[in-house]
């Protein structure tokens, strides 16, 4: 029992280290962004991810104004945005334009709304670009809870999601409901946006979804290897970005994406060679 106690207290002490918390947050987030990012790439939902992520800024403003937890405000607004966009796309709107309007309007409204709230202006960059070094134990718990929740949801619906992604008609003919599977992705996206806000920030969540998955594409022969590759690459980018940020005192969110982008560039070079 004493060794158990020691291990527990050691873990607790480790979690006192902001760097350990930041590293764990980056890894926890990549668990969810890997497989979800693969679906975003396969289903060409990049702009969809942007619109949902940008809406998170509006969620921050709402949460601050009403004294609700930031995570909850973000989740609710991101979910509302994602459901709206999914609903519009099901009705066959001109998606490129509609998403462009929604994504940028959500960001602009969010930024204006936040500016009305006192004492937030200075923290704004934390919400836009992430503040992974300031991740608290509670934040960390939420990132892992959200991340594992999304993974569980995707694993549960995996076969149906893949079938519906390949062809809605094939899914229908097999007795599946493609619209319900779409909703699964929408829900997962909103959760990822809510937990990723603190790590990479609203502006770069979509990048965290797309770049590792796109990088993994070239190395994969099956959907599963692409999703797992995206998890690994996301984790490497997260930890690498963290190191870059410490070393050069750069903003962490952008640093993570810079590392992810460099990995992507290297993978295309390798594919050409």
């Amino acid at each position, binding site marked *: 029992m004493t060794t158990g106690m020691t291990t527990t207290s050691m873990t607790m002490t480790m979690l006192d280290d902001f760097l350990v918390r930041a590293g764990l947050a980056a890894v926890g987030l990549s668990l969810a962004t890997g497989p979800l990012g693969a679906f975003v*790439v*396969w289903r*060409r939902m990049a702009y969809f991810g942007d619109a949902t992520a940008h809406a998170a800024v509006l969620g921050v403003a709402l949460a601050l104004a009403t004294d609700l937890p930031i995570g909850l405000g973000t989740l609710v607004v991101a979910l509302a945005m994602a459901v709206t966009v999914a609903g519009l796309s099901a009705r066959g709107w001109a998606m490129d334009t509609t998403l462009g309007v929604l994504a940028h309007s959500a960001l602009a409204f969010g930024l204006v709304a936040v500016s009305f709230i006192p004492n937030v202006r200075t923290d704004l960059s934390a919400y836009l670009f992430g503040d992974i070094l300031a991740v608290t134990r509670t934040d960390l718990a939420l990132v892992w809870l959200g991340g594992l929740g999304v993974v569980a949801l995707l694993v549960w619906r995996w*076969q*149906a999601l*893949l*079938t519906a*992604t*390949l*062809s809605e*008609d*094939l*899914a*229908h*003919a*097999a007795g*599946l409901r493609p619209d319900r599977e779409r909703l699964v992705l929408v829900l997962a996206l909103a959760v990822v946006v809510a937990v990723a806000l603190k790590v990479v920030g609203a502006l770069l969540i979509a990048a965290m979804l797309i770049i590792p998955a*796109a990088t993994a*594409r070239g190395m*994969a*022969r*099956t*959907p*599963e*290897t*692409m999703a797992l590759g995206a998890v690994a690459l996301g984790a490497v980018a997260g930890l690498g970005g963290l190191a870059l940020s410490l070393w050069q005192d750069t903003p962490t969110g952008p640093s993570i994406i810079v590392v992810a982008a460099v990995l992507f560039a290297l993978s295309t070079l390798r594919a050409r060679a």
Partner: protein
Amino acid sequence: MSLITADHICVRFDGNEVLHDVSLQIVPGEIVTILGPNGSGKSTLLRALLGILPLTGGRILRQADLRIGYVPQRLMIDRTMPITVRRFLSLPVRVTDAAATETLARVGMAGHGADQMTSLSGGQLQRVLLARALLGKPQVLMLDEPTQGLDQLGEASFYRLIEEVRRDTGAAIVMISHDLHVVMAASDRVICLNGHICCEGTPRVVSTAPEYRALFGPGTQGALALYRHEHDHGHDHHEHDHDHA
């Protein structure tokens, strides 16, 4: 005893009635071909029978727990998705390696399990789609213009394959086709569609029916003439703005 019964079904798109008052039955072991000009609602009928499309009228009865295999007209796989033939066969229901290997051999695709789906030719893709449908041990196999994009040789061997499937499994087969002369040889029953059922029956009966001649032109004796048919004929004019193929 019928596997699927369509009872006076109607389907509308954007206010256009694409299918009007269509009734039909599919019984075990028969090969039924749905024939008709572009925009006549062939794909729509198949998709309605599959339960993909909502009906605006009538009803469709399926035998309880009916297993339906579906081979779509085409499958566009996004190049961003890496997926092998073997992996594709396990969607959405996982199948054993033994079953996958056996079925690939049956459709003439032995040894292609490790190929990427996006690298297949049109004919190979059709065969893989058929293999996937067969793995579900269907009681009804539905094919939407399965030989589109195949050359004549490929077409003939594909229809032979369908014939074998029917013989070996006793499944009913419902397919859409343009290729009139092949259809006439390979079908037990032909349904002529143009928004509604113009005529139906054995190939011999249908080919002499005046409705069929009106639909596919007067020169029904020569196979080549069949391709040069007029799309509008003596029935009430149907506007089909959308080709829901």
